[in-house]
Each structure stands twice: as C-alpha cells, then as structure tokens.
C-alpha cells in the first residue's frame, strides 16, 4: 500500500503538468497578494484572516483545477487502459482505490500548502508578520470543503465519463460570475469582503455565520460521500 501510494504521488507530482502548473500557481498567488491582498479587504489589515481568506478565495479556482487534473491520472482513457493490467492483480480493489485516493488528497494538500506558504512568505517579507497560526481556521474553512468536494465529485464524474472532469474544472470560475446564495459566499469571494463589514469594530475576529458553516460542512460531507462511493465502486 505504501509503495503504491508513493508511486502514485510520484506520478501526480513528478510530471510536466505539475512542473508547469506549480510556478504558474505560485506566480499568480504572488500577483494576487502583491496587487490585491496588500490593500486589505473590508478595512482590515492585509494579513488579517479576512484578507487572507479573500486571497484563498481567489486562488480556489486554480486549486480546484489542479485537484481535478490530479484525478485525470486515474480517470483518463489511458488510465482505464492501464486498469486492464492492474485489475488482474490480486490486491484488494478497495485498498488500491484508497491508496490512489490518498495520493490525490496528498497532491491537493501540497498545492494548498504551497498556496498558504506563498501567503506566509509574503506576510513575513513585507510586514514581518509571522503569526501564522491565526490563518489556520480561514485556511481550513475556505479550502478543505471545496477541495474534498472537488476530489469526490471529480472522481465520481470521471468514473462515469472521463471527459466530464474537464468541464467540471470551470465550476469555481462560474461561481465567481453567477449569482449564488450568500451561504456559498466563500466560493465567489463576497463573504470575505462583505461579511466583516456587518460585524462591529475594526479588524473583527474571524468567524463564520451558521449558514456558511452548514454549507461548508455539507459540501465536505458530499465530497467525502462521493469519494467513498467511488472507492466502493472501485472495489466491486
């Protein structure tokens, strides 16, 4: 299992796509930080959880695309043809699917860490600000639910039809231009720019309204359920 996980990580992270994507991703992140986040959002400091959350929201479409690209290593036509060999092996299909799922999660987590690491470096470099622990909650709240949902829904769709993963990559971009319920404000960035203004005082403490928490929890559960379905179907 560990060996399969290691090889799958190597496949996902040691290739032309990732080598090209990571610099673009980091460069885009730095541009967002140095042109938008630096001004702060909702009258808060650039390194406030709100400004940081806005930065994460802007990075989310790229993170989403990156996660779904990882999945194409498992759902593409080429991957299905390789399954003719791997399916004939005696390993439990459920364990095999879990190892691959773990590799996709690890790849996605690495991208998320790169995203957060870029911000931490930016804050340290420009502001000498290093209280990174305060960024943990907005990171978890903003990134974990959509990325778990990206992997779950993407794997599910990819198993149905390999090509469905590609149009699905556009979802966060659509969310930024289409009107969506307030509870999903983390998806289009409005939450971080508008919600702090409704709270009393300058630089309010980071908090999430119940509707947003519920939406994020539901999203996370839906993603986990879809992942479980895909792993279970893989074991049949």
């Amino acid at each position, binding site marked *: 299992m560990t*060996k*399969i996980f290691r*090889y799958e990580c*190597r*496949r996902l992270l*040691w*290739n032309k796509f990732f080598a090209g994507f990571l610099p673009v991703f980091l460069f885009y992140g730095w541009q967002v930080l140095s042109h938008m986040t630096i001004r702060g959002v909702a009258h808060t400091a650039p390194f406030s959880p709100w400004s940081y959350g806005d930065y994460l929201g802007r990075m989310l479409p790229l993170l989403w695309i990156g996660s779904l690209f990882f999945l194409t290593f498992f759902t593409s036509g*080429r*991957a*299905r*043809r*390789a*399954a*003719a*060999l*791997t*399916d*004939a*092996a*005696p*390993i439990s299909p459920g364990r*095999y699917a879990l190892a691959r799922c773990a590799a996709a999660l690890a790849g996605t987590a690495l991208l998320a860490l790169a995203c957060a690491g870029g911000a931490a470096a930016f804050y340290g470099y420009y502001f000498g600000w290093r209280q990174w622990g305060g960024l943990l909650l907005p990171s978890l709240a903003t990134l974990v639910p959509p990325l778990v949902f990206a992997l779950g829904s993407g794997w599910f769709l990819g198993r149905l039809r390999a090509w469905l993963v590609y149009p699905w990559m556009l979802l966060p971009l659509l969310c930024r231009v289409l009107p969506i319920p307030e509870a999903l404000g983390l998806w289009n960035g409005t939450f971080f720019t508008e919600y702090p203004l409704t709270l009393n005082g300058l630089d309010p403490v980071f908090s999430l309204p119940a509707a947003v928490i519920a939406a994020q929890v539901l999203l996370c559960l839906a993603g986990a359920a879809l992942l479980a379905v895909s792993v279970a179907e893989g074991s049949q």
Partner: protein
Amino acid sequence: MQIELQNLSMTYPNGKQALQDLNLSLEAPSLIGLLGPNGAGKSTLMKLLVAALTPTSGSILVDGRPLDKAERYLKARLGYLPQDFGLFDELTVTQFLDYMAALKDLRCPEPQIQEVIRSVNLEEKAKARIRTLSGGQHQRVAIAQALLGNPLFLIFDEPTVGLDPEERIHFRNLFSRTAQDRLVLLSTHIIEDVQSVCGQLVVMNHGQILFTGTPEQLIQSADGHVGVFWERDGVREEGLHITARVNTGQGVRCRAVADRLPACARQEEPTLEDAYLYLISREAVR
C-alpha cells in the same frame, strides 16, 4: 492448476452474443493456443477468465471452485497480458514493474524484476521512462509484468503484436519454456505463433469452439481437403477457398482448401494453416 468452463455464455448489454455455451477443460502443464479470426470471441473469453467480465450464464471453475468465489485465489496465481492495455508513462520500466509487484503483493521483488527484464530483453531500457519506448518495447514491458511473480496460470492475448520477427521467435520460445510447469493460454490469430510451440489448440469462431485437440489432429482433419491447381484452369467451384496464390514461370498456382477438391487439383499435404482455414471455411459454409 485446472480451469474448467461449463456451458459458458456471454452476451453484452448491447445484445451482441460473444460466446455460446462453451465447455472446455485446461490443465497445467500445457501451452494452449487459442486460435480464431477477429471477432471470434477470444478476447471475451480471456476477460471472463480473469474475472474482468461476468458471464451471462454458465460457470468457470478454478481448481474446482467457482470463479466468483475464487477471484483472489485466481488472481494470486495469474499473469495476464490483455490485447489492449496502457502503461504508466511517467514511470521507468523498473518502477512500473515494481509498482505491479506491489499490486501482486510480492515480497523482495527486485531479483524477480531483474529476471523478467532480462527475459524480455529490456536490460538496456530498464531505467528508461515508459513514454520513451517504442510500441514493441511497450509490449515487452507488458509481457514482463505478466511473468512477474512466476504465476501458475498465464494468459497472453495477442502477445506478439508489434514485435519484430526475431522477437516473436524469442517470445514463442519463452512461452514454451514457461509452460513446462505451468498453464499458458496463448490467444492469437497468427498461426505461426502457435504451430511450433503449442501442445493443444482451441479454435473458436462466432463465439463457439470449433476444435480442441493437438495440432496434429487439426492437420489430420484437413487430410484430402488441400490441393493446388493452376489459375488458368478456371476453377470456380462452390465451397473452394483459395489460401495462397503464387506467381510462377508457368502461371499462377493456387492453393485451396475445400470439402471436395476440383478434379484438376493435385492433393497436397496440409499445413496447420491449411487445416485452420479449412475448419473456419467449413464453418462459414454451414
């Protein structure tokens, strides 16, 4: 190892009946050639044997146990080369085989990996990424992964596709050696691949088994049904299947198989190819 097919039928969801009521017993050690034209049902049979498909009716017994209850047992003893497969292009040959060894749950696989790399003549490419390999080398990597772990039951579906003539001979001999203590099923539509090495033949067409037996028995079945004649004789008999036309100094000489040869034809000793074509053509007439 013993595999038994009992009244095995397979109909795809689109209604295409791929196999009809097959009964067959395969027992180690032997190298069994599975012959048949394209679309005969060979690949479907292979997929059923590796549990990649579930039969519509009938059963497959693996050492006396139904396959649906002995899938892990079978796969722990199986080496499989499908006709259509993909490899992980991002990995090197050695890494891919190490990956497959992990899937096969092999302990300390390095010596075995080196051995199969040697046996398929890929030592020079052991550290090359799979994406840099030629089509024939891809095929050899896939053969190597099938051989990994010394499986007791090997299934090769069109294994020599994409290999040059020298390599084909090498692999025929490799399969022959492998089958000395194991069960090897070799599916192909290339007669040359089976005639020199297979001890038993199974000929399929239209989802049915037309023949099981030794190559000699198949050849004997065509005795008196192979002949040669000159094209200028204008033979136009029904049921005559011309298997070769050769330009000679005296005109075009035709070799043909038929239930009843034309009077002008001179009988010839049948080859395995003649016998196979005779069997298939007889089935087509029916």
